[in-house]
């Protein structure tokens, strides 16, 4: 039969694990930005494109994506 000490030990383990999960989730939440700057996003995309080996494909995909967005909006 499990005595009180064993129950307390298991409980303490569960509490510690729960506390750790909460801390981890808070850390993830803190790392996810609430909002992105469009300017920074576009700058980053342009910078990526400049260094990309397949620039033409990248531009083609971007134009297609823009077209789809505009088509959805109209």
């Amino acid at each position, binding site marked *: 039969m499990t005595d*009180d000490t064993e*129950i*307390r030990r298991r*409980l303490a383990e*569960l*509490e510690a694990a*729960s*506390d750790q*999960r*909460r801390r981890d*989730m*808070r850390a*993830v*939440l803190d790392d*996810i*930005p*609430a*909002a*992105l*700057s*469009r300017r920074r*996003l576009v700058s980053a995309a342009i910078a990526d494109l400049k260094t990309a080996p397949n620039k033409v494909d990248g531009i083609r995909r971007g134009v297609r994506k823009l077209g789809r967005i505009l088509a959805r909006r109209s």
Partner: protein
Amino acid sequence: MSDGAASVPVHVFVAASGNAFMTDIADWIVEAAIASGRPANIVDDRLPIPDGSINLVVAPHEFYVLRDDDDAAVRAAARCSIPICTEQPGTPWFKLSAGLCEGSPLVVDINDVGAAALAELGFHVHRLRLGAVASMGYEVPEGDERRDIDVVFLGGATPRRERVLAGLAPVLWDRPCEIRTFSFSRPVTGDEPGLVFGADKYELLARSKVIVNIHRGDAEGNDSDDYFEWARLVEAMANGCVVVTEPSIGHDPLVVGEHFIECRADQMAATIDDLLNDPARCSAVSAAARAAVTGPLSFDTSVAELLAVADPIVAEVSNAHHGGESPRWGRVFRRRGVGRVTREGPPPLLPVFAPYRGLRKQLFDQLLAEMAHRRELGGFRSLLDHGDADHVNRFESTTWANADADITVVVTVYDYADVVTETLDSIASSVDVSVEIVIVDDASTDGAVQVVQDWMARHDDVPVLLLARSANRGLGLARNLAIEHARAEFVMILDADNLLYPNCLGTLADALHLDPAASFAYSTLEAFGSDPGLRSAQGWYVPWLCDANYIDAQAMIRRAVLQEFGGYRADDSIFGWEDWDLWLRLAEAGRHGVHVPRMLGRYRTQSGSMVSLTNLAAPDLRASLAARYATLPWPDSDRS
């Protein structure tokens, strides 16, 4: 002025549903025009027409925008009217105003800075210097005894202004003052609580010794302008209220040190203190300013000058309209116009780009689930230790049992061992009231219970009841447990990291006695710490309450009201916004709170607080509140 000109009527156009500030300015112009011998009246139900009268429009960015006329009609109205601009260069309203001035024969601005900016755009500009009109002066009896308010602030709430005002709290908390701010989120119609217009404003200014002028700052709260707020400050001067302002431009011919006091924001507290401690200096500046704005700088003179400039222009416009020669101003503005007439504001900003919103909400929900799980574990431990999942240890001071207090202060503690002593000290320093304290510790893990017990041992004269939960149950239930044990008529809610100034409790209790229908009373709070500013700075107004939770939990509530409404809702769907939920519940039931516009409490700001966590899922939480209290006037964006 010829007799013919004297008989030309002056029509002052103002939007019927616009900002009450504009109505005040329009009223002054009518009064001053009549004083200078012109027939004048307010018009708010039609556009200006070229009927030979002087048409003054206060102000184009409001008058035309709030009407539903087509662009051609607005252009025609602009050609036969003189717009009076009031907005600061650099703001979207200034641009809007300037766009609506195109074609006008003369453009007027109430500030040198605005006039210069309009001239730069190619307009024929006249600067209308504001001054006092007879009705502005509230009759102040001799001496200062009627000036029962030391300091007044009147203005829109901006982050920069709030930060500067918070810096004045150490000087203002024990002085009678009125910090009256309003939200820019909706037009000010004059119905908002705490805001005063016309005669009520003049009386307030006549009762005040000092008015402070703080620059608005930009959207991020940084320094951006040094604009002299002529309208507000002339009203103050006409009523003998001394102006203390940050360094400004465009105040000529008023003189720094003679007609008003100038100081930097960081020197404002000391300057105000020195001034209030020097009644002779106060009286000298007050008298000089009043003499200036009611004498040589009176508005009657200024409006007479404007009308003298307007007379020949209006005659020319009228002549052109009736088939005469094309007026010279038309040629000028076709050459140097500022662009097409538009009644649109600046293009709306794109919505906030938040690609991770869904992910954040999911994580937030997981976090709440984990919190609930952790609370269950705490309940098991409590069951193991005490045979009760919801065990509460009770400690009371020797004075608790027989205390008969005016006010119960409810303090909820969760891991605030480092600051709770300061909070309890601030409660114990209260003056003019008898107080009992109910503290609920929500299973702190940092030894806060022992810290509170030590404090109780040192302050046995203060009636204190400490209820220490064995398992954490959350803020709403902690407050409700404390409220169950409150015995006084009024219950003051206080978080364990916030503070009260000594006169806070007495002043809020007085406010509730003065307004027996009010469910609760709250004061402006000085926010200190990582994000200084103001909290709870505006009066009770349900539309504002739907825009944002601007009333902090730190308020004094009638115990009977708390019992009637069942206290705080303990529901994770409103995690962190329990207080907002209570205010909304009261609003829906037609109840109200009374605001004391003084900084009587201190609100500690720090990143990582529970409210910051709530903001992670703000849009969804707002939507759930809007659905729950659907009869309230929520902004459209919150309705699904």
